[in-house]
């Protein structure tokens, strides 16, 4: 019941938007509804017992499953929702960012009512995706996010918004149809849409047909990889991030990208543990290429927002590496990385937004000496950018270290080699962040802006400071998040452990061609 309320709370706000013509009241309705959703998500965390790792059934805290649609022998669909530690952490992140982005969106002037209607619909889609435990329901919510996002980018975005919106729409739609195909294939093997039941009975899916299982896993992986996004499926992201208005960039980077990682944790990986272990060299390679390629391309950007966008590609690469390595530390690290990236990338986009609203450009080479002009702003921005760089004491550091430590001690073939190559990303990450900081914040103010820049306003402070405090808090004391996630991860890992112990897998190595390709790409971007 609580999960239903959380999911549909945002859409309940939509009719109220149409009761009033007053733009201020409409903004209040949008912000107020997302605030309620945020409070509810906090309550769920507070009330949740992390030891409850069973999804749907005995020992599940909020879960339920009701028969919903039943067609002869062909479709049995349930209205089923539940959460475990992993999804709850992401729900809290969604609630928080949903509220902060709604506050940030108060500066939007163009068709406020339409904006908040689409925004609230998007929130429902996001909450629903995280709580759905039935594939049909999951897919409905998954797709429900597309249309509002298309409009939010396409109507309220920047100059190239139309192209960015349709590119986002088409890319994610291609990913979605791959998912749908795989879902149907699995459904007709097991005759159930229930996600926990499929996980429990995964060995029955095309039992003995390794090639077909691998094909289905690849379809699911690509379907989710488009959202993550993993190199080479990332090309929609820089465009969409750059063209989207600030609050939508925040949601895109903070929550939507996590959908891909969540889908892998909830669906793609546990359905085909054997395929995951077999595909490990490829998964690790994709993760590492994303880390290095994203960082290398970010280094070459002159558009501030594009730099932040490519840093997302790099950071989500850690998630893939961590998940594929299959040690408790690496998976905890991957989930923490999703959470931490949600906080930090949201902060970075908000920071860029603050300046963009005043300067109306984002050219890194035209800014300088913001430290002297805007000391308060610079302080918060430093927390965001150093956190993103992986400075110890910040949430990003914890997550990345977990991923690397975990991956390094993984028993999977060549894990140490992959991990060592992956650490190049840390260096590159430091380079692009530091170069950017030097250009933008240090030095003496060069260009005289038309209007003198205003330092952080109250509204901007309200959106930025909570994120900064949380990023610091989880950097110093990550226990609450780990306590929440770890029991679920322990339960989740069981089939993989069995697979790694039982299976005898050939020693895979990073294909030499790919290393060259990364180097070439990096040179080209320079």
């Amino acid at each position, binding site marked *: 019941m609580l999960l239903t309320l959380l999911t549909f709370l945002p859409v309940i706000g939509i009719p109220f938007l149409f009761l009033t013509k007053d733009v201020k009241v409409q903004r209040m309705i949008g912000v107020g509804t997302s605030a309620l959703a945020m409070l509810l998500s906090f309550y769920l965390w507070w009330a949740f017992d992390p030891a409850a790792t069973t999804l749907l059934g005995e020992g599940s805290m909020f879960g339920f499953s009701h028969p919903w*649609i039943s*067609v002869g022998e*062909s*479709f049995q669909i349930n209205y089923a929702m539940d959460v475990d530690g992993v999804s709850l952490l992401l729900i809290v992140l969604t609630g928080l960012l949903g509220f902060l982005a709604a506050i940030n969106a108060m500066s939007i002037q163009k068709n406020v009512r339409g904006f908040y209607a689409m925004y609230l619909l998007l929130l429902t889609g996001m909450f629903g995706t995280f709580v759905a435990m039935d594939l049909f329901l999951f897919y409905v919510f998954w797709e429900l996010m597309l249309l509002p996002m298309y*409009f939010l980018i396409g109507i309220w975005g920047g100059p190239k918004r139309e192209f960015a919106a349709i590119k986002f729409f088409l890319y994610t739609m291609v990913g979605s149809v791959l998912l749908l195909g795989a879902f149907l294939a699995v459904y007709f093997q097991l005759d159930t849409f229930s996600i926990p039941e499929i996980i429990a009975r995964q060995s029955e899916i095309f039992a003995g047909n390794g090639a077909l299982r691998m*094909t289905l896993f690849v379809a699911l992986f690509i379907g989710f990889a488009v959202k993550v996004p993993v190199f080479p499926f990332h090309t929609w992201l820089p465009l969409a991030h750059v063209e989207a208005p600030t609050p939508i960039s925040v949601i895109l980077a903070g929550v939507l990208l996590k959908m891909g990682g969540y889908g892998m944790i909830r669906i793609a990986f546990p359905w085909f543990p054997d395929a995951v272990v077999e595909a490990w060299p490829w998964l690790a390679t994709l993760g590492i290429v994303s880390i290095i390629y994203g960082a290398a391309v970010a280094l070459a950007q002159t558009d501030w927002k594009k730099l932040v966008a490519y840093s997302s590609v790099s950071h989500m690469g850690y998630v893939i590496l961590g998940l594929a390595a299959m040690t408790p530390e690496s998976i905890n690290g991957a989930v923490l990385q999703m959470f931490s990236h949600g906080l930090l990338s949201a902060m970075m986009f908000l920071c860029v937004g603050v300046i963009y609203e005043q300067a109306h450009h984002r050219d890194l080479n035209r800014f300088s000496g913001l430290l002297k002009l805007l000391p308060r702003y610079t302080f918060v921005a430093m927390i965001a950018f150093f956190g993103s760089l992986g400075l110890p004491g910040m949430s990003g550091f914890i997550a990345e270290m977990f991923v690397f430590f975990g991956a390094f001690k993984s028993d999977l073939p060549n894990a140490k080699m992959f991990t060592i190559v992956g650490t190049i990303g840390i260096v590159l990450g430091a380079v692009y962040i530091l170069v950017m900081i030097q250009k933008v914040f240090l030095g003496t103010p060069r260009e005289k802006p038309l209007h003198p820049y205003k330092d952080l306003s109250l509204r901007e402070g309200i959106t930025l400071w909570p994120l900064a405090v949380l990023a610091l808090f989880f950097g110093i004391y990550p226990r609450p998040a780990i306590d929440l996630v770890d029991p679920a991860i322990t339960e989740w890992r069981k089939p993989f452990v069995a697979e790694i112990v039982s299976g005898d897998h050939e020693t895979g190595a990073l294909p030499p061609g790919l290393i060259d390709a990364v180097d070439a790409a990096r040179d080209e971007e320079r």
Partner: protein
Amino acid sequence: MHSLLPLLAQDGGELSAALMDNFGALLPEMFLCAMVVIVLLVDLVRGRGPSPLFPWLTLGGIVVAIGLVISGSGDPLTVGYDGFAALQVDGLGRLFKLIFLITGALTVIFIMRSGRRYGEEGEFQVVLFGSLAGMCYLASATELIGFYVAFELVSYTGYLLAGYRLESAKGAEGASKYVIFGSVSSAIMLFGITLILGFTGTTKFSEIATALLSVETAQPALWVGAVFTFGGFAYKAAAFPFQFWCPDVYEGAPAPVAGFLAVASKAAAFSVGVRILAYAPAAGAAAATPQLAQLFSQNAAFLEKLLIVASVGTMTWGNLAALRQTSLQRMLAYSSIAHAGYLLMAAAMVLRADVATDAMTAIGFYLLIYLFMNLGAFWVATLMRRDLGTVEIRALRGLGWKQPVFGVCFVIILVSLTGLPPTAGFVGKLQLFAPVVREGFYVFAAIGLVNGAISLYYYAKPLREMFLNKPDEDTRPLRMTGADLALIVALTIPVLVLGLYRWDTVTNAVRDAVAMVQ
């Protein structure tokens, strides 16, 4: 040949109603035929040409026919003479008859509100009733002779409707193409039927299914007959490789008529096609010897391949050709070809015993919702032609902001045509794909799914024009009255409701209906 004799060698008077079995079950068809005469007589007696009376007369007639179809529901009834079954009145037929009649009624309403006067001419309504009567007969036909006569009735009335009022010079080209292509395909089909009749000695679908797929009679010429007959269907359903007439005709005809042809005419072809295919699994199961059963499965596999190739070709060609269109009506024409491809996907699966019911349910359900969403889109084209004088997608620029209710409805319709949740289009497509996946045709299903993704590109075009652009000085609003708006809202509601809420009730009703076929 023996089974034909009772029908052919009649000495007139003896064919009385008393000798016909269950003649009363044909009441809807007879009523529609009577309406042809009634409208013609009214027109003649009045002798004053066009009048607003005629569309209302038609609407009334269609409503009565719908009532007759519904009131006639019950167990399947065989209609024929002296044990020779010419028709079977059952759930499948009734479902399709309702689809035709509702489409017909909406078409008349569209025409009334399209700002053109041709709907007020009695002749037009006569042709429409003839078309509906033919379609309704088709949906129940179980043997070739009656089927062919009804098929030709639908074809000829189709030519007349398409060419009745032309919106452009291109329309004339389209209409003549329709007649020429249509006549050729009819001739080919007739040749195919002759071959089948000659080799199997029967006109009954059920017996043909057995004969066609069994060892004694299977020979190349028979298969030529089958392929030729299939070609006739493919033409009517605008399926690859017989789809070339379709865009020109749909673009040249007035939007309401194009909508009628796109929905009802296509549904008519599927109604009888599905029925013919549905006999195959039973015939296979009844095979006497293992040898026969094996041969049957070989032959069925050949037919299945034929359908799969047609399906893949149809949807891919339709979608790729639609990508570049700038006219809404032409885009809808190409996209309707793509939808025929999705339907053929499930049609191929009707040959498989274990998913036959699922596949037929899927086709029935999809055509039912296709009615609402496609006619919704054609209604927009009608409005554009009336108020903006053009059906170019460009003309919709910024309209979503000026007329938000209209804009939102059209968005929902387009999203449904793309097949995205939470709309009925998604639920329908899910059901079309399910049997294909269940039977293990993964590549085939994948092609279908990718086609769905391609279609997003062109269905998003009106979306983009309506909402992503602000109205500029060229933007003219649609002069919509309350009734115009109510119509699009009424067409949108089923699309949304059947996607979100309890679509299983409708699906199960369709399922019960099609399960009566055997």
